[in-house]
């Protein structure tokens, strides 16, 4: 198993995080909350494409462990994908930089506690009877459940705070793509919070408490609940299925693939200029709410479904291959097959770390399932990642069954290094 820089948690005696993954608390419970089990998988060699790896995740989830909060990169990106999501995009309500920085510090303090399974501030009970409790209380007694809180900044933030000279070029305004039908009330945002956890109540609690701390400084613009991860960053695991019933994102970047993370996900110092130096160790996130036309899809023949994806439905093997993870032979697929068009080989190597979730927000007014994929992808540069891939998908046969209805892009600043660090420090500190 390749050692990768991992997020760390302060140890119990309050000292800073250990830089040595081998001995840090994070090495024990950080990676999927099940370092031991993962070790076993690693020992079982990298071919571990077995049911056993599901058990790894199960063990991790049942253990309800904490993911380390500190590290060079924010947690919640290369972290093994948790089961549930609550994603929120906020509008900035202040143009006072100092006030916003204080909120980021308050968020950091709250996030540090919540990811460790602790209540916000003075807790949910036992305080002054005349005052509302600091913590809202619904996560009391629940385990940390691998909660990660990942914070990002949208394009509008830089202008509103008079920091246009710090907006990275890589954080472009996304162009219009063929077939887009974007709802402005489900798009954009100046700040984002991605809360992932194995327990939905833990994720919702986290967003709710951060929103509460943010009142007056930021207001929720839109938010999305997700269940059923559609991608995995754990290579040993079976690729999860989306709501169309297919495995997608089989060749996703794994949390253990240091080289690919470096190449495709983390912003390198060499990428940056005066505007974006603060982004070293960060990443860029594109979020897309993709509505699926579930009912027409369900009436589509199996052959057509498989042709559209370029994989078989049962195993998920590429056309003409036997196993899910067999290298696809793109030319065997239809020219408009989804896998063929999305594959790095069709996009000059462009590769995204996908972290999406299925969603079902009940039904729409016409009685149709209001469902789809909440697509989340992390990349080193949006111009070299999402944009070329999405442009290439203009002729995707799948487009007949999906529609992009929400869209947002965010710059994800680097990780929280230690107990004195806070979200976005590099952006807002003069020395950065």
């Amino acid at each position, binding site marked *: 198993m390749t050692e990768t820089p991992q997020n760390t948690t302060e140890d119990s005696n309050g000292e800073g995080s250990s830089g040595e993954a081998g001995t840090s608390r994070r090495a024990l419970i950080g990676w999927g909350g099940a370092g031991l089990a993962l070790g076993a998988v690693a020992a079982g060699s990298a071919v571990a494409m077995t049911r056993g790896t599901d058990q790894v995740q199960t063990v991790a989830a049942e253990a309800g462990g904490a993911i380390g909060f500190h590290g060079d990169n924010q947690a919640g990106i290369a972290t093994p994908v948790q089961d549930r999501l609550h994603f929120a995009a906020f*509008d900035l*309500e202040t143009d006072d930089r100092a006030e916003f920085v204080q909120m980021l510090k308050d968020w950091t303090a709250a996030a540090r506690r919540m990811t460790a399974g602790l209540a916000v501030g003075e807790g949910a009970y036992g305080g*002054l009877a*005349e*005052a*509302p409790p600091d913590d809202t209380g619904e996560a009391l007694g629940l385990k940390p459940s691998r909660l990660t809180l990942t914070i990002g900044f949208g394009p509008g933030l830089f202008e509103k705070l008079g920091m246009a000279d710090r907006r990275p070029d890589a954080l472009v305004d996304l162009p219009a793509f063929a077939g887009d039908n974007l709802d402005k*009330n489900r798009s954009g945002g100046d700040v984002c919070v991605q809360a992932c956890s194995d327990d939905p109540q833990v994720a919702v609690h986290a967003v709710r408490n951060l929103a*509460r701390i943010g*009142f*007056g400084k930021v*207001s929720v613009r839109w938010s999305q609940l997700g269940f059923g991860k559609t991608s995995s960053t754990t290579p040993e695991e079976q690729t999860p299925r989306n709501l169309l019933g297919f495995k997608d994102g089989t060749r996703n970047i794994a949390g253990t693939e240091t080289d690919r993370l470096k190449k495709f996900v983390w912003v390198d110092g060499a990428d940056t200029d005066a505007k974006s130096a603060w982004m070293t160790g960060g990443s860029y996130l594109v979020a897309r709410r993709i509505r699926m036309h579930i009912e027409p899809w369900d009436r589509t023949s199996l052959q057509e479904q498989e042709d559209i994806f370029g994989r078989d439905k049962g195993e998920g093997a590429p056309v003409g291959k036997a196993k899910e993870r067999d290298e696809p032979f793109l030319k065997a697929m239809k020219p408009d097959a989804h896998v063929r068009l999305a594959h790095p080989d069709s996009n000059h190597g462009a590769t995204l770390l996908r972290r999406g979730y299925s969603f079902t927000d009940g039904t729409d007014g016409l009685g149709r399932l209001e469902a789809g994929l909440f697509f989340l992808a992390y990349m080193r540069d949006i111009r070299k990642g999402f944009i070329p891939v999405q442009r290439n998908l203009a002729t995707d046969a799948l487009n007949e069954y999906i529609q992009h209805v929400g869209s947002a892009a965010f710059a994800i600043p680097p990780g929280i290094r230690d107990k004195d660090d806070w979200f976005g420090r590099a952006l807002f500190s003069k020395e950065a």
Partner: protein
Amino acid sequence: MRAVRLSVVTAAATAAALAAVTGCTEKSSSGGGDQAISVTATDDKCEVSKKEFPAGHIELDIENKGSKVTEVYVLFPDDRIVTERENIGPGTKQKITAEMKAGDYTIACKPGMKGDGIRQAVKATGGKTAKRDPRLDAAVAAYRKYSQDQADATLPLAETFAKAVKAGDLDAAKKAYAPSRIGWERTEPVAESFGDIDPKVDVREDGLEAGQKWTGWHRLEKSLWQAKKITAEDKSLADQLIKDLTDWRERVGKAEITPTSMANGAKELLDEVATGKVTGEEERYSHTDLVDFKGNVEGAQDAYELLKPVAKENDAALVTELDKQFAALDTLLDKYRADKNSYDFVSYDKVDETGRKQLSDAVNALAEPLSKLAAAVVK
């Protein structure tokens, strides 16, 4: 309590002897067993026979020697009424009684039944007196006066509304509707503390309990804006509204108000906005929600301003934030009226989703710090 009571009885020596003879040791219908204090009211004086007396059952023997009809009140330090007597005519005598625990009180005579009255500080002695913060007592007293003023000012406006309804004048009634509600909306937590008045005057159709008759403003709102006609029953409901609002006005002085209830009342007013007005549910037929909204915010701000000096000492940052957010919400609301001195707001059905979201965000931005006011006051 009993020991104190007995000492009161023995203190009134003559009366006690009489009581002993009749075998009634504690209470007598004549009140003779009680501590008696004479109150002599004139047009410019309010004289009391004793300024200190043992705590217990107290009888006030009032004589109006002035030329005006007067009222006499016994008040707690925060001006909550212990007991009162109105309409004491010139040259007449009245007796009132009160149970007074140890502590400071005020006896006030109001010649002409107006104003704050001519005041005398008195003290009931014996037993322990709870420590009070005079600044908070003053804040509560000022808020009680504010609440009373709002109720007093509401009645004539409500009567204008009721008259229009009774005259069958649809347009005049519609015009008078929202203004008649502002004073109520400003002080709603006080009115709601009585429990029985709010369900009579301010209930919405969906808030009715099984078997409850729908009365009050919103019943008439539906007739005026939806049915667009005034029935005979509506006319009697207008009379009922005045009767119920008069009841409210009479009871404000006795409302239990504390610094905490003031602070939380301010927060509750914002809750009212967040749950009823921002959604347009409160005034679903008339769409005058922004008038109520403004009234709620004004009432919250007025309560806050009275508590501010104390809150500022305990939590200066909170006060800065509240000042900022009240100002921000006021500015936002002003966008919905042409004249800042009028309550002529844009009809809420004309406020689009973006506008409603802005209002909702501003309410959240204010209500969150406002929820911390009570703690800052009692700290």
